[in-house]
């Protein structure tokens, strides 16, 4: 589904990603772990199409299409979803409005009719109940005045409404207390599906106790220095990131 080949990326002239290779098949959950400054968030933003990154080499294909040639919204329509590390506050735009606009965009791209407003609302409300979110959040401005946990839940809500095929979760566990982490993780687990893949970008192993990855990759210094199964995360947790530097795969 997603093929990243030899991806090199510069930000303001400095090389941040130095040849990333990653293959993700439908239904797989990949965790990308790494120390701060390793390029994890850059990789997330590249997939979502944020401006300000210079791709100097390599390619990314998504369902056989050149992802890097697609606009930000085209990627969303085609099924890429980035759950932000710091969800953006959008004053004056209500949650329900953004959800409807987003879903309409996705449905239109996929040749589907617009959902009737009432069907849409009941669908969203059901998903909110799953995430233990109060309905009043629907009519509040997107993320404005939300706590850290509420913002992350809101990201998962958007993800469940839009039902993307590739979910990229950028440090979704940061700033969450244990209860919120559980709710968010359960929300993600509910979305697991043979046709849907996940990239979990995280600093800590903690999230992976709740969302079991199929693969774990260690990103350090702009490269994937080690890949393995879930046991790699535990090993990292026990030995620290310095252990990776000493045991680079050649």
């Amino acid at each position, binding site marked *: 589904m997603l093929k990243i080949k030899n991806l090199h990326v510069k930000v303001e002239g400095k090389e941040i990603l130095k040849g990333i290779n990653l293959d993700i098949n439908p239904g797989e959950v990949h965790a990308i772990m790494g120390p701060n400054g390793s390029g994890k968030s850059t990789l997330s933003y590249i997939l*979502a*199409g944020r401006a300000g990154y210079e791709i100097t080499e390599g390619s990314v294909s998504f369902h056989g299409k050149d992802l890097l040639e697609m606009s930000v919204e085209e990627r969303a329509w085609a099924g890429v979803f980035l759950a932000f590390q710091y969800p*953006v506050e959008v004053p004056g735009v209500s949650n329900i409005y953004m959800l409807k*606009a987003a879903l309409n965009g996705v449905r239109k791209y996929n040749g589907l009719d617009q959902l009737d407003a009432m069907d849409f609302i009941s669908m969203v409300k059901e998903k909110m109940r799953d995430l233990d979110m109060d309905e009043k959040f629907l009519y509040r401005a997107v993320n404005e005045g939300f706590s850290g946990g509420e913002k992350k839940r809101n990201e998962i809500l958007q993800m469940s409404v*839009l039902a993307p095929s590739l979910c990229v979760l950028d440090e979704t566990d940061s700033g969450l207390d244990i209860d919120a982490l559980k709710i968010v993780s359960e929300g993600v687990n509910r979305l697991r599906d043979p046709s849907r893949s996940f990239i979990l970008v995280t600093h800590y192993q903690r999230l992976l106790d709740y969302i079991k990855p199929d693969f774990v990759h260690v990103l350090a210094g702009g490269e994937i220095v080690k890949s393995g199964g879930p046991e790699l995360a535990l090993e990292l947790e026990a030995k620290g990131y310095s252990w990776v530097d000493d045991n680079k795969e050649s």
Partner: protein
Amino acid sequence: MSVLSTHYNDLLQNTSDELTGNDFPWLGSLRQRSKDSLLVSGLPSLRDEEWRYTNISAIEKNEFKLAPRNLAVDQSLLSKALLNHCHHLVFIDGYYRDELSSSQDLPEGVTVVPLSAAEKGEQETQFKSLINASFNDEAEHGFTHLNTALFTDGVLVCIPENTVVEKPIQVVCLASSNSPLAVSNYRNLILAKAGSKATVIESYYGSQDMCYLTNVVTEVVVETNANLSHTRLQAESNQAFHMGGVYSTLEKSAMFSQSNFTFGGLISRAEIHADLGIESSCILDGLFLGQDKQHLDHHTRLNHKQPHAVSQELYKGVMADQSTGVFQGRIVVAEDAQKTDATMNNRNLLLSERANIDSKPQLEIYADDVKCAHGVTIGQLDETAIFYLRSRGADEKMAKNMLTFAFANEMVERISLEPLRHKVMDELLKQFPQTDILKEWL
């Protein structure tokens, strides 16, 4: 000294038959004084400090004339302008149209009449006592002189003591599509006597692409403990010129909320002046949306003349394309006006590289125990928010529209009167469409 063009000279000399109140001799001399002043001062020019950002030479060049009476009504324009559940006074091209108006079930003693129907006696007394009463020297200029000299009609509203008028009073001024280059001078006089409460809305609409001039002066007196809400909704033609002023006096503990929405006009200017008495409070809200080559000018002046008065002002501007906006807000706190609490904010969004805004807040404070704050921002849409919305599936144009709408909608949400809120929102949606959305979600 400016010289008035020959054309305006002729206009002043040859139109007296069309005017209103010819039965009132005092009005004749008032008009004459304004004519004389206008002949001396001419229309404002860029050399006048208060007009330095607004070039009105295009208005001066056009040969405007008074429209004939009783031209056909553009029904679609009328229905666009009319608000449900209001008393209506409808004017077309400067003249009152009784057959289109309705103001039944007014509480006893309430006067809501066109000036052209003001009767001798009490109404004449009110007329006389209100006209020019809320002006001070700094408010007078060529356009207000022109108005006094040539107003053909307008409303006289007088709310008796301790009377509440529940239904809003809407003054609808339309420019018909049958009178190119018409000039309509409206004079509105509003008196809310002690302890009374009322809502007055002035709506200005015109047919697209028509060139005409609307020149309005509204004078307002809010007496002790009275509460007046006043809104101007300016949705003139894109080729029209609109000069509008609201000059108000607030007596002890009076409350005055003035909202000003500017959408239309090639050149538009609104002046909102308020003289604040002791413990009075004044709220000024404003929203202006400029596109194409529109020039939208807003001047506000809050004179805190006495102690313990509160004023809160928020004006928002959105300038697209090659439009220009002007905000000049001035707060003057007199030496006696201790414990004044005044805030003034102007927030502007520039949507294009060629759009422009001149914002000039001014505070003049002569008292020493006051709280005064002002702030101006001029910015562009937040790139991070655009990216966020696009990453969810809103296309770029949609994302920008959503954010622009949200910026402007803050002012719309403050309108408590529902039909008016919807009407203003319609104008906003016309420029920044939001697709497939229920209004209650906005």
